[in-house]
């Protein structure tokens, strides 16, 4: 891959996507809901593609492929169990959507603040999300910078790659808020899928076709086709530790939970859910197949994360496909980062700034949100630049750490006795425990930090809630009234049919 080819391809991709981000700004209103939620008017197809691009980061074609290379088919199981976790959207989606409209909720953490009648809870949950998601974004930036440096043999140096990724994430998030992010995400989701399909298609063809590929795999690497897989990597505790936090991803990660507020109708919400599930199944199968291709091609990679860069450089796919695959991975990372930046900005503006100054006008809140985006980008950039071990650690802890938000979120719609004190205690105690475990005992009593985080958060939330006073009126509004609204929608739907 010649450096000029990489520059040209990256330049073209960034130009087209930036023009798209600017074009969709037209017709944008001025309010907070308009900026952060695209005025709750996103259609189903754009929502599905944007949800896909936001969820799937560089992890898929690099990390998941690497996991497959290392441990085999268990990687497929872990990722498809994550996908099945979207069943939570089937239960929580309509409730988030209805509550969002009823109370003008902007962020998932604001939902907790309103439900449990506590601004402190909203601010605390927003800050907890920030602690885990900024390092997660930094690691995505690092991934792009390393990939560009590796594939161009240093022609695009690490810092240049880092800067390009940070600047475009910032520009696309700032250009038109969620409107720009959603449309650029949708374009990038298509790019991710086409690139991955082409790469795997060419790779399989060069290996003699799918039948021969499967036959060679079974003959040369039979252990990799079952669990616990290659070198026994996917022991049950590892599998559970990996898959459990991801099962709850659609509720625990605010950048995707927020998307339950944005579709323009329940029908669009359904399209988002089903469209994402179909995208996710194909993208997962393709990423895992890519990892198996690497297994057949290279027997002794020191680091499984090198499987993808090594494959792309190996000549198994033509240079233009390798280039496209690189753009696809870059698109996957950037589309995740800009969504996280926008969601964190909305949480800091709504839950922290407005939490502290409840009477602040909407314009001021929006300004704070817009100012926070460059600050968050700079933080992610600097963390990535420093390459601190702590950042990698917090990023790994992010899926486990954000799990502590799940019990209060479930309680919001299904448990009348839940209280703000219970939710606050759960977030603080379980959050600190997860970080401590990640540092000191990544596997404790045979289980990963995410498993402990969920158990501790649930127990603390239940115990503290039971000895504190619950906000009865809010419980009635979020449980009884929302159930009534859901019943009305079902009745109306039956009439429509």
């Amino acid at each position, binding site marked *: 891959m010649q450096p000029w080819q990489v520059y040209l391809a990256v330049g073209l991709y960034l130009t087209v996507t930036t023009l798209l981000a600017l074009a969709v700004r037209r017709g944008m209103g001025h309010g907070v809901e308009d900026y952060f939620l695209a005025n709750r008017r996103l*259609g*189903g197809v754009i929502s599905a593609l944007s949800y896909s691009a936001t969820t799937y980061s560089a992890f898929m074609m690099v990390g998941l492929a690497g996991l497959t290379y290392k441990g085999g*088919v*268990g990687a*497929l*199981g872990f990722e*498809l*169990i994550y*996908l*099945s976790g*979207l*069943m939570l959207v*089937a*239960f929580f989606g*309509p409730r988030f959507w209805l509550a969002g409209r009823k109370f003008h909720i902007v962020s998932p953490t604001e939902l907790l603040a309103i439900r449990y009648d506590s601004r402190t809870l909203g601010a605390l949950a927003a800050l907890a999300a920030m602690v885990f998601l900024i390092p997660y974004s930094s690691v995505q930036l690092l991934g792009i910078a390393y990939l560009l440096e590796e594939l161009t043999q240093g022609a695009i140096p690490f810092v240049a790659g880092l800067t390009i990724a940070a600047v475009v994430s910032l520009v696309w998030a700032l250009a038109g808020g969620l409107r720009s992010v959603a449309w650029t995400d949708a374009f990038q989701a298509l790019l991710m899928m086409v690139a991955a399909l082409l790469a795997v298609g060419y790779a399989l063809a060069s290996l003699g076709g799918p039948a021969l590929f*499967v036959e060679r*795999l*079974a003959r040369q690497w*039979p*252990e990799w*086709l*079952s*669990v*616990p897989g290659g070198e026994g990597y996917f022991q*049950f505790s590892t*599998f*559970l530790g990996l*898959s459990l936090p991801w*099962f709850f991803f659609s509720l625990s990660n605010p950048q995707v939970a927020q998307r339950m507020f944005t579709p*323009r*109708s*329940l*029908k*669009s*919400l*359904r399209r988002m*859910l*089903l469209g994402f*599930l*179909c995208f996710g*199944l194909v993208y*997962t*199968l393709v990423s895992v197949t890519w990892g198996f291709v690497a297994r057949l091609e290279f027997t002794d990679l020191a680091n499984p994360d090198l499987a993808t860069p090594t494959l792309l450089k190996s000549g198994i796919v033509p240079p233009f496909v390798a280039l496209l695959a690189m753009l696809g991975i870059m698109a996957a990372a950037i589309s995740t980062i800009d969504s996280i930046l926008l969601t964190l900005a909305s949480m800091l503006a709504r839950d922290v700034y407005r939490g502290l100054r409840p009477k602040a006008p909407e314009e001021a809140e929006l300004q704070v949100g817009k100012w926070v985006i460059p600050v968050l980008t700079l933080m992610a950039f600097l963390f990535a630049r420093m390459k601190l071990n702590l950042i990698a650690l917090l990023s790994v802890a992010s899926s486990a750490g954000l799990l502590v938000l799940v019990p209060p979120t479930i309680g919001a719609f*299904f448990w009348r006795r839940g209280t703000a004190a219970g939710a606050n205690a759960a977030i603080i105690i379980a959050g600190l425990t997860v970080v401590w475990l990640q540092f000191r005992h990544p596997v404790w009593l045979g289980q990963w930090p995410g498993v402990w985080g969920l158990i501790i958060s649930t127990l603390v939330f239940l115990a503290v809630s039971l000895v504190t006073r619950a906000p009865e009126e809010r419980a009635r509004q979020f449980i009884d009234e929302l*159930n009534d609204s*859901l*019943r009305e*929608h*079902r009745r*109306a*739907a*039956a009439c*429509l*049919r």
Partner: protein
Amino acid sequence: MEKGEKLWAAVLGTLVISAYAVPYLFLRHVHAWYGAGLFWTLFALAVILLLALFTSSWQDKEEE
């Protein structure tokens, strides 16, 4: 949670448990494409189909 929702939750929950139990209990020694890999793919397809059915009542009076 409504009665209908509880039934769906039970069915879907059972399916998720099977995604852990079946490959680890029954397919450990099947070193072929029709082992755990096929099972998990069918599991994901089943989840998608069931969710399509479960959410079929999500309609609005509002125009798309």
